């Protein structure tokens, strides 16, 4: 399978820089350059540059594009303006999740959905199937697009050195097209997956190498470093952001994952609406919570949570949290245990280890 894994336009640069490469979602990606903890700290205190070209990009155009997207997702795209971005789960009729994604509204009849790498082909097939009932064009443009992310408190000041566009004018979850960065035409959005301020930069695949080099060079005096998927995971984990395949899946609904504010049950008909409404009316039986380890040990995905020896849930993600220097986990627990202060155990290598339910996210950046 190894030779079938895809490479981003930056693959050779990563290898040359000594990055450790791993398979992720069908791609060969850098998991770390110098070390996960060092890269994590750089993003929290200075800035980090990520190659996230593995993310899928699906373009939807046509008169009925808005109507179709609103039927596909649980959030309400009709409430967004042109150049605004919307986060949303996309559900099956069962209420389980196909994927979670960002909708970039480029025009009233032009959108890009940014989806998880591992789900890209599945999403494209799912969306194309629904599109048969609408006057829309659906194109998978993932291979033509490279995506970089610059994240951290110094992201704006670094990026500003390479563009005349006033970056402070781009608000959180808004985008700007045709931004020239070091002479390269990009689509820029104030978004990210780290819990820090920052931008995601979309450019032609052929421009990615030049852009990456220019950013790393101009950002060096401010402490900008390249950051791999290892730190991307610990950063999103501390910030309580869900990862598909862990906190969301075909068998975990967005209600269980606590994404209620991205579900608009009262908008026009959408896929999963009935199942989600029913779940709300009947009350959900399990809920995603934050857990802090009290005893020694790291809870990992798949470990069992128990109370008085009785299984009460499963860990979906667990890690050492570098910024907080503690071990935390996200876990799906029986609904009535989803309350800060509840005590439980996580079974680690056949031994119960003490833990306590805490508020999530574990990390919130200072204003």
């Amino acid at each position, binding site marked *: 399978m190894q030779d079938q894994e895809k490479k981003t336009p930056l693959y050779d640069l990563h290898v040359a820089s000594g990055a*450790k490469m791993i398979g992720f979602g069908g791609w060969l990606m850098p*998991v*770390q350059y110098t*070390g*996960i*903890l060092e890269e994590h700290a750089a993003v929290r205190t200075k800035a980090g540059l990520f190659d996230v070209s593995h993310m899928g990009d699906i373009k939807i155009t046509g008169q009925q594009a808005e109507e179709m997207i609103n039927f596909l997702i649980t959030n309400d795209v009709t409430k967004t303006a042109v150049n605004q971005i919307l986060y949303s789960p996309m559900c099956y009729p069962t209420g389980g999740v196909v994927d979670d994604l960002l909708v970039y509204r480029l025009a009233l009849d032009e959108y890009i959905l940014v989806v998880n790498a591992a789900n890209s082909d599945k999403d494209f097939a799912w969306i194309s199937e629904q599109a048969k009932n609408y006057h829309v064009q659906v194109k998978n443009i993932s291979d033509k697009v490279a995506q970089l992310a610059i994240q951290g408190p110094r992201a704006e000041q670094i990026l500003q050195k390479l563009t005349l566009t006033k970056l402070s004018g781009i608000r959180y979850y808004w985008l700007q097209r045709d931004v020239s960065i070091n002479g390269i035409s990009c689509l820029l959005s104030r978004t990210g997956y780290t819990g820090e301020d920052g931008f995601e930069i979309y450019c032609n695949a052929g421009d990615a190498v030049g852009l990456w080099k220019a950013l790393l060079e101009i950002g060096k005096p401010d402490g900008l470093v390249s950051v791999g998927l*290892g730190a991307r*995971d*610990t950063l999103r984990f501390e910030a309580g952001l869900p990862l598909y395949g862990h906190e969301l899946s075909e068998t975990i609904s967005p209600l269980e994952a606590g994404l209620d504010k991205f579900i608009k049950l009262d908008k026009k008909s959408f896929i999963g609406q009935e199942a989600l409404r029913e779940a709300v009316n009947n009350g959900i039986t399990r809920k995603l919570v934050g857990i802090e380890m009290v005893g*020694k*040990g*790291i809870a*990992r995905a798949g470990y069992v949570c128990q109370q008085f020896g009785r299984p009460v849930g499963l860990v979906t993600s667990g*890690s*050492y949290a*570098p910024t907080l220097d503690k*071990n935390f986990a996200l876990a799906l627990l029986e609904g009535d245990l989803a309350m800060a202060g509840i005590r439980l155990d996580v079974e680690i*290598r056949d031994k119960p280890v003490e833990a306590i339910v805490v508020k999530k996210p574990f990390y919130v950046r200072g204003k």
Partner: protein
Amino acid sequence: MNIPENLRYTKDHEWVRLEGNKAVVGITDFAQNELGDVVFVELPVIGKKLAAHDNLAVIESVKAVSDIFAPVVGTVSKVNEVLTDSPETVNQDPYGGGWIAELEMADSSAVDGLLSAAEYEALIKEKA
């Protein structure tokens, strides 16, 4: 890659230092580099009797959980408590301050069956 001449090694990337009838155990420089930042070490209980290849300890990096096996038969006589609060010592000083545990052996000739530095070096090269 640092592979001290005076130590013995296992295929699981552990090192053993023989001190009389005691075997001090740790993981190699190669192993700590492969694992990445170590954030947790679960140490064995002193007095625990182990057969060769029994679980001796667990080392967790940010991304991975790795079992450390007893390289020889023996009884745990010391553990490196420093690793409880400073697991990163395994990365910083794998052959020194990053030692994991000490085993008391009934028969110290068991160490003779382990790899020499040259043999271990060849094993790593084969892997790379």
